């Protein structure tokens, strides 16, 4: 079954005009914001395909900016996101690209705050649903539809077992998991989607595992920093 529940038919609550060009775009921006973990000072955004062709009419630019401000899909401030971003000290630049992409609604978002820089590429696949396809040049896929952990770490034997052990101890169930490494003994990104909410205690414990560099929680159903 492609559609699993009643709220995938009636819903989401959203600011128009398009579930994929607007609501999905908000979620893409918001995911990038959550990966950075704070309001970016600067965002460089490249939009491709149909996003690039119709972004003005659909407010896709405003929607992505609103996501970077951590707004939800039905936040009335989406319309004023450009002005509100400027007031908040977020500089946003949009670029369109005619390079071919796998999905017509694709965006690459580069966000920066101080020394920190993150790069997130994702697509809006319909009905406000999204799929992230790359984070900081790691090829991983997740939907941000569930509480999702992004764990940046070193490649070391047994480390995945250490990670899943902590999830197990917390009584959470892993619904989906993906691992991508840049090289042997190099940098790794592990993505875990959980059926249950992730607590800050779980994240703290995970961060104490040797060779784990950073643990990032993406839960678009809750406010930032409130697992």
């Amino acid at each position, binding site marked *: 079954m492609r559609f699993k529940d*009643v709220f995938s038919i*009636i819903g989401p609550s959203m600011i128009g*005009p398009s579930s994929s060009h607007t*609501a999905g775009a908000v979620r893409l921006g918001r995911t990038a914001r959550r990966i950075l973990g704070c309001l970016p000072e600067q965002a460089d955004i490249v939009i491709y395909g149909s996003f690039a062709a119709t972004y*003005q009419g659909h407010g896709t630019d405003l929607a992505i900016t609103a996501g970077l401000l951590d707004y939800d899909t039905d936040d009335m401030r989406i319309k004023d996101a450009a002005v509100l971003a400027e007031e908040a000290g977020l500089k946003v630049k949009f670029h369109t690209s005619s390079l071919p992409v796998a999905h017509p609604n694709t965006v690459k978002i580069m966000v920066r705050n101080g020394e920190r820089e993150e790069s997130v590429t994702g697509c809006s696949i319909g009905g406000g649903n999204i799929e992230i396809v790359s984070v900081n040049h790691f090829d991983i896929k997740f939907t941000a539809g569930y509480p999702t952990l992004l764990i940046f770490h070193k490649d070391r034997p047994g480390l995945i077992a250490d990670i899943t052990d902590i999830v197990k101890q917390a009584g959470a169930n892993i619904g989906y998991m993906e691992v991508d490494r840049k090289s042997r003994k190099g940098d790794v990104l592990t993505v875990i989607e959980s059926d249950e909410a992730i607590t800050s205690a779980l994240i703290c414990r995970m961060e104490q595992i040797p060779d784990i560099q950073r643990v990032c929680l993406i839960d678009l159903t809750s406010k930032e920093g409130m697992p």
Partner: protein
Amino acid sequence: MRFSSLNELVALCTQESVTIGKLMVQEQAQETGKTEQEIVEQMASYYQVMKEAVSKGLSENTKSRSGLTGGDAQRVQSFRMNHVPSLGDKASKALAYALAVSEVNASMGRIIATPTAGSCGIIPGVFVSAQETFGWEDEQLVYGLFTAGAIGYVIANNSFISGAEGGCQAEVGSAIGMAAGALTELRGGTPEQTVHAVGLALKNSLGLICDPVGGLVEIPCIVRNGFGAVTAQAVSDMALAGVRSVIPSDEVIHVMLDVGTAMPEKHRETAKGGLAQTPTGRKIMKELYGNKDQPARNRGNGK
């Protein structure tokens, strides 16, 4: 969910002596592990958003960002207040309300995708006007949304609900079927009558292409939402009168799948055909996007 066809849905409701709306609340609770109360509260908050959208579309400026649309709901509302509408008072009200919500959507207002943003006017147009006509409490309408959701769930999983996949029949057509069925159950129709309404409605929109001018959810989407709300009311009257869909509704849903699959790409939300490629449609697109190629709009898989 324990059902995947409308036939199975009717059988379950008959066996357990519940309405489709009530059954859907139970199924959703089972599926998500949430309580029925939490689920009903979420839907109730959605219904409030729909009512607010109707009221905003009738009173506030709804000019879209492209500048192509806005104000039609208020034109219809004003006309029906000052003239005798040929549709009669109730259907003309549903027409105005549906246009209002679709114009709120086009002007970046808040709506509920039902099942998509492109078809978001039909269910609120029918529901909010029916509430005023029949004097129902909000709670009844909220259960009606579960009825609509159950119907949409079957359509979405056996056919499609996105214009990119199946044309406008999949969006506006599905929304009319959902609204017509829900209205039938709300007015005391049996599960059988409710499901006949779905088949009757879908038959009327088979083959409808998705040809938005400039790729935007405006022309002809907004007026089709208005027509859709009126059609859903006609369907509900027929179903309650005992008119049956001789071709069973599940079979009609499969016809929609067949027709949509055979539909050329230019008629599936790409703005490469239909109204979008008329001389005026092309001129509008040029004004919007300059000399760039037409937008290859595609909302992809899903809704």
